[in-house]
C-alpha cells in the first residue's frame, strides 16, 4: 500500500501541509528540529491510532493552534481499494484562555482533561480500536536498534504493535487483557488488605486466561514466522545466523487445545495465589513475556557485541515487514527515521538494497549526502524546513 495524499492541519510544528505522493522511496532531508520525526509520527498514527512519542495527545496539537485541534487526513491506496482516513484530536479549552467573557484564571481545572479523538474511515465515524491496522506502517527509529539489548518491555511492544496491525482480534484481546490486569492487581492488593475475599479472584483468573491464551499463541506464531526472514537478512548483513526465541512467562505446548491451555493457566494462577496476594502484582501472563536472540548457542542480548545486537534488531524489523505483508496480503508503508546514519556503510547498503521492493518508503536524514549513492538515483528527495516540505 502507499500514501497518495497526506494532509496535516496544526499537527506539531506543521500549521498546514499537503503532500501528493507516489509509490517509491522518499528521502526527507532537513536539519534537526525541522519536523522530520513529526511527519513520521503522523504517518505512524494512521496505523496505530496512537503517537509513538507523545506522552499526551495534547502534544500533537500545534502550539497556538487557533481552534485547539489537530487533523491528519490521508488517502491510502491498497490492494483492497482506496482508503480515506481522518483523525481529529482536540483538547478541552485550557484555563486562563480569553474567550470574550473575561479572564478566568481563578477557576479550578475540570476533573478530567479528556482529549477527544474522532476518526473517520471513508467518511464514516469509527472507534479507534476498530481502525488499528487498516493502514499498516512499519516504523524504524534509532531506539529500535537497542531492541536486543533493551528492556523486555520494548520487545513485548514490538510483538504487540506488529500483531495489532495484523489482527483486529489480537488488538482487542490485548486491550481487554490490560483492563483485566489493572483490575486484578487492584483486587490482589485489596485482598492483601482484607478488603475483599480471595474467592473474588476466580472471575479475574478466568478472564485473564481467556484473553492471555490467544495472545500467547499469536506471539508464538509471529516469532516462528519471522524466523526465516530474520535469519536470511542477518546473514546478508554479515552475521552468521540468527535464531529468535519467544519466551512466554506461561508456555503453551503447540499441541495443546485452547480450553486445555486456559485451564492449565488457571491452575498455575491458583498455585501462585499466595505469592500474588503478598506481592500485590500479576505474576504470570503475556505482560511478563520476553523475546531472545541467538547466534548459535550465544544469547545476543547478554553476550552479543553491539554490532551483533544491531544486526539482529535490523533483521527483526525486516522480518516484521515481511510478516505483515504475508498476513495482510499488502505491503506496509516503511518509515525509517534517522536510522541510516546510525549504520555502517555495509549495513546501509544491505538495507537500502533490501527496501527497494517496498511499495513506499520514507527515510529521514539530517545528512542525506552520506546515503549510498545509488539510493539517491531512485529516491525522491524532499526538504523539510520549519514545518514545511518542499521538493528539491
Amino acid at each position, binding site marked *: 500500500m502507499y500514501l497518495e495524499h497526506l494532509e496535516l492541519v496544526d499537527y506539531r510544528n506543521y500549521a498546514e501541509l499537503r503532500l501528493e505522493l507516489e509509490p517509491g522511496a522518499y528521502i526527507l532531508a532537513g536539519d534537526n528540529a525541522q519536523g522530520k520525526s513529526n511527519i513520521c509520527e503522523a504517518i505512524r498514527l494512521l496505523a496505530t491510532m496512537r503517537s509513538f512519542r507523545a506522552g499526551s495527545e495534547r502534544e500533537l496539537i500545534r502550539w497556538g493552534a487557533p481552534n485547539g485541534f489537530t487533523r491528519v487526513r490521508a488517502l491510502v491506496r491498497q490492494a483492497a481499494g482506496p482508503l480515506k482516513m481522518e483523525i481529529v484530536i482536540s483538547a*478541552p*479549552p485550557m*484555563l486562563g*484562555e480569553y*474567550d470574550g*467573557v*473575561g*479572564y*478566568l*484564571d*481563578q*477557576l*479550578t481545572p*475540570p*476533573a478530567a482533561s479528556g482529549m477527544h479523538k474522532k476518526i473517520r474511515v471513508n467518511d464514516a465515524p469509527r472507534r479507534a480500536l476498530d481502525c488499528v491496522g487498516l493502514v499498516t506502517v512499519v516504523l524504524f527509529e534509532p531506539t529500535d536498534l537497542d531492541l536486543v539489548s533493551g528492556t523486555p518491555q520494548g520487545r513485548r511492544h514490538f510483538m504487540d504493535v506488529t500483531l495489532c496491525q495484523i489482527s483486529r482480534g489480537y488488538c482487542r484481546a490485548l486491550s*481487554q487483557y490490560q*483492563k*483485566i490486569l*489493572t*483490575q*486484578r492487581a*487492584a*483486587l490482589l*492488593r*485489596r485482598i492483601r488488605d482484607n*478488603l*475483599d475475599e480471595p*474467592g*473474588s479472584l476466580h*472471575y*479475574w483468573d478466568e*478472564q485473564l486466561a481467556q484473553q492471555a491464551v490467544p495472545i500467547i499463541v499469536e506471539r508464538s506464531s509471529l516469532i516462528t514466522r519471522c524466523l526465516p526472514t530474520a535469519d536470511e537478512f542477518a546473514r546478508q548483513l554479515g552475521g552468521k545466523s540468527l535464531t529468535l526465541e519467544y519466551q512466554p512467562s506461561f508456555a503453551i505446548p503447540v499441541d495443546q487445545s485452547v480450553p486445555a491451555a486456559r485451564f492449565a493457566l488457571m491452575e498455575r494462577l491458583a498455585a501462585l495465589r499466595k505469592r500474588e496476594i503478598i506481592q500485590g502484582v500479576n505474576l504470570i501472563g503475556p505482560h511478563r513475556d520476553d523475546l531472545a536472540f541467538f547466534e548459535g548457542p550465544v544469547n545476543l542480548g547478554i553476550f552479543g557485541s553491539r554490532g551483533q545486537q544491531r544486526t539482529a534488531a535490523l533483521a527483526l524489523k525486516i522480518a516484521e515487514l515481511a510478516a505483515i505483508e504475508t498476513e495482510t496480503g499488502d505491503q506496509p508503508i516503511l518509515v525509517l527515521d534517522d536510522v541510516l546514519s546510525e549504520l555502517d556503510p555495509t549495513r546501509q547498503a544491505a538495507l537500502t538494497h533490501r527496501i527497494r521492493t517496498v511499495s513506499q518508503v520514507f527515510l529521514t536524514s539530517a545528512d542525506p549526502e552520506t546515503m549510498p549513492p545509488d539510493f539517491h538515483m531512485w529516491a525522491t528527495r524532499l526538504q523539510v524546513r520549519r514545518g514545511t516540505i518542499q521538493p528539491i
Partner: protein
Amino acid sequence: MQKIAAPIQGLIEEFAKLPGIGPKTAQRLTFFLLRSPEDQVTRLADALRRLKTDIVTCSTCFNIAASDPCAICGDPERDQSLICVVEEPLDVLAIEKTGIFRGTFHVLHGALSPVEGIGPKDLRIEELIQRARTTDLREIILATNPNYEGDYTATHIAQALQPSAIKITRLARGLPLGGDLEYADEGTLARALEGRRTFE
C-alpha cells in the same frame, strides 16, 4: 488581571464541576442566566433545591424516588416476584422505556471495581440478598452493564445468592460489549431482556 464579581465567579465554578461542562460552557451558562428574567432563574433554583429536599431513596429497591415505597414498588400491578438488578437509576429509566418489563427493580448504585476501590460493601448487594430471602421471588435478572465491572458484579451476586431456588438470569448479549445500558437503544435492550439466559 481583572476579576469577576464573586457571585458570578461562584456559579461558573459550580457549573464547571458538572460532567460534560468545561470552563467556557460554564461561563456561557452563567451569563445566559444573568440575562434571563428573574422568575426563570428562580424556577431553576427551586428545581435544584427540590432535587435534594423532595427526593428519597426507596427502601425496597433503592431507586431514587418521590416517595417510599417508590411508584414501581408500590404498584400492585407490577410483578413483585421478579427483580431486575441494575447499576444506576438511569438504567431503570432505560428499561422502563422498553415497555415490556412488568417486574420490579433493585438499584446497586454502581458496579464492583477493585481499581476504584468499590467492593461488595459499597453497593446495595447485601440488601438484595436480604430481599431475596424475605420475598417470594421467581426470578432475578442481572442487568448490569456489558463490561468487565458489570460482568464481575453479576457473577459476584449470582454466587452470593447460592444456594437458592430462585431462577437467576443475565441479559442476552447483543448489547455492545464495553457499552453502557443507559445508552443502549430501546429495541436492543428489549431484545436483550427477552433473550435473557440462565446464569451459569
